């Protein structure tokens, strides 16, 4: 319990500090002005979301290999947190795009692959509600989760492999790309903060899943 409180407090402090850094330490971008400050929150959430899906993918593989419930709990917890982070990405993106592009949305490779990713993980969670038997649900959703993760490299590569409305990458974008050094520091600090926050949510969600399992066992015992 104390560890969870400490993790939660650290996560909250980090996200407050990252928001402060995004507004008061990072310099203002010359062409876009203040609206560019969404970048830190938008991309930070996107990276933390991808990391949550990576955790889900690893948990799904481990479940298929080891068939231990704890991996199923970790899979669903990280999928749900990744989905929430991706939802925030899909909300903050259009808010940033509208003043800059003049449109809220366009079906380019990056936006479409991100939307498909969101739909895949919604399907992952829906699938779990459709199968009653616990082991079968865990196996089917793990297999689907492994398939769903295939979209993550596509989202990452979309702005590298194809010409898109979405801006080219400023991190790991090759020659000619890059960020102002202070912007880069603030960006990586925000990514760290969002990942710690995502980790905290995954832990909380995992405990919920563990408690559900405990209720199932007690209900069976009470009925016996």
């Amino acid at each position, binding site marked *: 319990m104390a560890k969870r409180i400490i993790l939660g407090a650290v996560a909250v402090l980090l996200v407050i500090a990252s*928001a402060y850094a995004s507004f008061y330490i990072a310099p203002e971008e010359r062409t876009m*002005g*203040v*609206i560019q*400050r*969404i970048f830190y*929150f*938008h991309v930070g*959430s996107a990276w933390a979301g991808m990391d949550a899906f990576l955790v889900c993918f690893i948990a799904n593989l481990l479940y298929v290999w080891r068939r231990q419930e704890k991996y199923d709990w970790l899979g669903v917890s990280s999928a749900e947190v990744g989905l*929430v982070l991706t*939802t*925030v990405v899909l*909300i*903050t993106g259009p*808010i*940033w795009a*509208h*003043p800059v592009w003049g449109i809220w949305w366009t079906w380019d490779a990056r936006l479409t692959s991100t939307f498909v990713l969101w739909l895949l993980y919604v399907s992952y969670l829906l699938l779990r509600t459709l199968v009653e038997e616990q082991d079968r649900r865990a196996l089917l959703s793990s297999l689907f989760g492994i398939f769903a993760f295939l979209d993550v490299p596509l989202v990452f590569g979309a702005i590298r492999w194809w010409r898109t409305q979405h801006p080219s990458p400023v991190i790991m974008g090759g020659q000619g790309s890059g960020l102002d050094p202070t912007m880069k520091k603030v960006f990586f600090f925000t990514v760290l903060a969002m990942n710690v*926050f995502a980790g905290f*949510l995954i832990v*909380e*969600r995992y*405990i*919920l899943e563990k*408690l*559900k399992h*405990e*209720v199932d066992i*007690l*209900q069976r*015992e*009470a009925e016996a």
Partner: protein
Amino acid sequence: MKNLDSVFAAYLIGWGVFFLFYLTIAKRTSDLRTEIERLRALLPRGK
């Protein structure tokens, strides 16, 4: 400052979504703990 309202909206909505998600987890966790206590009380001692 131009577009400051959009930046404010993005942060507000984003953190609103995270906060709501955390609240639902906290509520469900609390309900399950209550349910566990109730079921434990139903079961014979030692279980």
